[in-house]
């Protein structure tokens, strides 16, 4: 009996030891935290990649941290303050300079598979590069652009010329002339949707309207002296924004209250749309052959288009940067992730992905968008003060579109930006760049 009890005790002890060992083994797993944003489709796509990575690497746990798009920056600030930065974070490309300057990111070149680095397009390299040390701090499968979508039926009705490449984009005179004609065309409620409905909580205004203004000779800040006064509130910017305000006053632009799509909504009340490349998938599904994709108009002497999107960086505080790099490489090569990105008309940031994306190949419906990347794309100012620059600019544009005085609003924005730069002693070493 004693022996029996002893055996049971021994078995229990062994079982406990095994449990402890298993628990110990479970604890020994390396946990990689990945912070990201996105809609349900992207959330699922990232989650599925994480599951596949865990299956291939049983000693690693990937913990996905979802941050709502409209509260991403607040969530990021909270993580910084709480010293809980994730190992990997998705970040909006124009904010990269600020993050690197603040010491949140580490260079990714030594951590990412070399074949992926060689596969990056120039525009993708540009969006992930910090201008001071020219090092690569983030990488992504994708990049982005904005084009001018047109309703073929309406454009044919007014006899508009359809540009086939970036080189023959509409001039300002043509563009405004067509807007005026469209405003009088039956069935057209608004000549153009510029997606004012995105509001000022996203990057949209700076991202999409900035290039139009730059085309007119304006810029958000002088990119050599890093001073906004004299540039953002200069004559070119005031004129350019007064021009856009005039479009709004004439009722040519879809108002904020009408939401984020009047181009292919029922009845197709907007004739043109200045929309992101991501807009194509849904627009073409709704409009079939009635959609045309054109380059952004040339308001001044040169055409300008935006670039940059949400890309992946590895935090400076990551205790396992090699594994984080391994996961990022796995993510960017993952076939199903790429398939999902393709279904969303994702703009290629890797050459291999471009080759897999017939939408963007020569002759493809979005070829002109891809052409913009190499011919007209200009990045948003790569400066640590960018969060202030974009916020001040967006508020000024919002005021102007709502009837405010352009000079007054831009002067206030320029002052706010310069004050932020002064408050940070010029963000050295940016102040030595001149």
């Amino acid at each position, binding site marked *: 009996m004693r022996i029996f009890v002893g055996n049971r005790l021994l078995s229990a002890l062994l079982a406990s030891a095994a449990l402890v060992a298993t628990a110990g083994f479970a604890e020994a797993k390396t946990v990689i*935290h990945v912070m990201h*944003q*996105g*809609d*349900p489709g*992207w*959330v*699922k796509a990232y*989650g599925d990649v994480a599951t596949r990575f865990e299956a291939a690497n049983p000693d690693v746990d990937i*913990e*996905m*941290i*979802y*941050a*709502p*798009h*409209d*509260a991403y920056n*607040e*969530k990021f*600030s*909270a993580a910084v*303050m*709480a*010293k*809980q930065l994730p190992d990997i974070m998705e970040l909006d490309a124009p904010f990269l300079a600020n993050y690197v300057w603040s010491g949140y990111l580490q260079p990714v070149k030594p951590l990412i598979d070399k074949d992926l680095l060689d596969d990056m397009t120039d525009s993708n390299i540009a969006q992930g590069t910090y201008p001071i040390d020219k090092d690569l701090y983030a990488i992504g499968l994708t990049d982005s652009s904005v084009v001018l979508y047109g309703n073929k039926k309406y454009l044919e009705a007014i006899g508009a010329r359809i540009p086939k490449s970036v080189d023959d984009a509409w001039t300002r005179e043509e563009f405004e002339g067509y807007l005026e004609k469209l405003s009088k065309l039956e069935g057209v409620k608004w000549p153009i949707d510029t997606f004012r409905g995105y509001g000022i909580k*996203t990057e949209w205004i700076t991202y999409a309207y900035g290039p139009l203004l730059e085309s007119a000779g304006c810029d958000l800040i002088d990119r050599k002296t890093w001073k906004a006064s004299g540039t953002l509130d200069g004559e070119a910017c005031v004129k350019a924004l007064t021009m856009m305000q005039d479009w709004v006053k004439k009722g040519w632009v879809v108002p904020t209250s*009408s*939401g*984020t*799509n009047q181009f*292919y*909504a*029922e*009845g197709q009340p907007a004739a043109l749309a200045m929309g*992101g490349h*991501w*807009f194509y998938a*849904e627009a073409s599904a*709704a409009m079939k052959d009635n959609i045309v994709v054109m380059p952004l108009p040339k308001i001044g002497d040169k055409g300008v288009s935006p670039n940059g999107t*949400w890309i992946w960086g590895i935090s400076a505080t990551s205790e396992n940067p090699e594994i984080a790099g391994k996961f990022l490489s796995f993510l960017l090569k993952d076939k199903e992730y790429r398939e999902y990105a393709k279904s*969303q008309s994702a703009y290629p940031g890797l050459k291999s992905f471009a080759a897999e994306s017939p939408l963007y190949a020569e002759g493809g419906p979005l070829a002109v968008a891809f052409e913009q990347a190499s011919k007209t794309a200009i990045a948003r100012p790569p400066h640590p003060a960018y969060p202030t620059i974009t916020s001040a600019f967006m508020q000024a544009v919002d005021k102007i579109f709502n009837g405010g005085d352009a000079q007054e609003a831009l002067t206030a924005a320029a002052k706010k930006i310069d004050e932020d730069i002064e408050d940070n002693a010029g963000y050295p070493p940016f102040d030595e760049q001149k």
Partner: protein
Amino acid sequence: MSDLALTQPVPLAIARGNGKRSLRIVQSLCILVIALVMISPLFMLLIASLKDDRFRILADMGSFRAFWVSDPTLSNYKEIAHFSGELAYGRYLFNSLAILVATVVSGLVINSMAGFVLAWGSLRGKAALLALVVALYVIPQESIIMPLVVMMSRAGLTDTFAVQILPWVASPLYVFLFYQFFAQLPKELYEAAEMDGASAFRIYRSIYMPLSLPALATVSILMGIESWNQYLWPTLVTQTDYARPIAVAIATFFGQDSIYWDRAMAASVLMMIPVLILYLAFQRWFVSSFVGSAVKG
């Protein structure tokens, strides 16, 4: 006929009766219009949640079609009714419910106790303490949110249910509400119970709490709504889907590139139901607390 009507004097009583009836009709019409204005967004939300085309929802929004669905479907509800994985909206709904119940129950106990002590306790500097409670109420939540995040993370509470409950259990507003309610009850009640040998806790539990149903209902409803609608706080302190509440989960439908109105509407309808039930359960006392305070005012 019209000549006759003009020449015959109308009896005063009949005229008054007609006047009253007209007034009643006007009043009823006004109430009907106000009710329609208040109900129409909810009705629109419900109708939109039964449409499976998000672009149609958007297109319909500016017209009367927003209040009509020709081919209703529950597909949006089916899409979100998952209980596992990253998009487990069913589970997030239960997370929110658990947080609401825990916050309200513990909040009722803590705040009522504090209110009771402020009203009847023999504390030194009670007046100053009461002034402090009122002063704390005017501090906006946003101004203390970041230090609170740091505190909670240092306490190791990030990504737990506790982090969504603990900071909001005690509230100056509810302490003051209970204080006001208890202070209005007759002093004799307290003295008589004390003379019978009841302890302060016994007096609070057996006499004052049963008498404070209107205050309990008011605090339950206000606290429940507050907890249910929390968005920024859980966004900052939840990481994974473990304790994610429904308000944060709904944010996934508002992506960078597009808004999934169909599923957002269905999730919003589901999100609305528990607070409506909470209100309906307590509304009798809730209304009486307002009426009572107005009369006593």
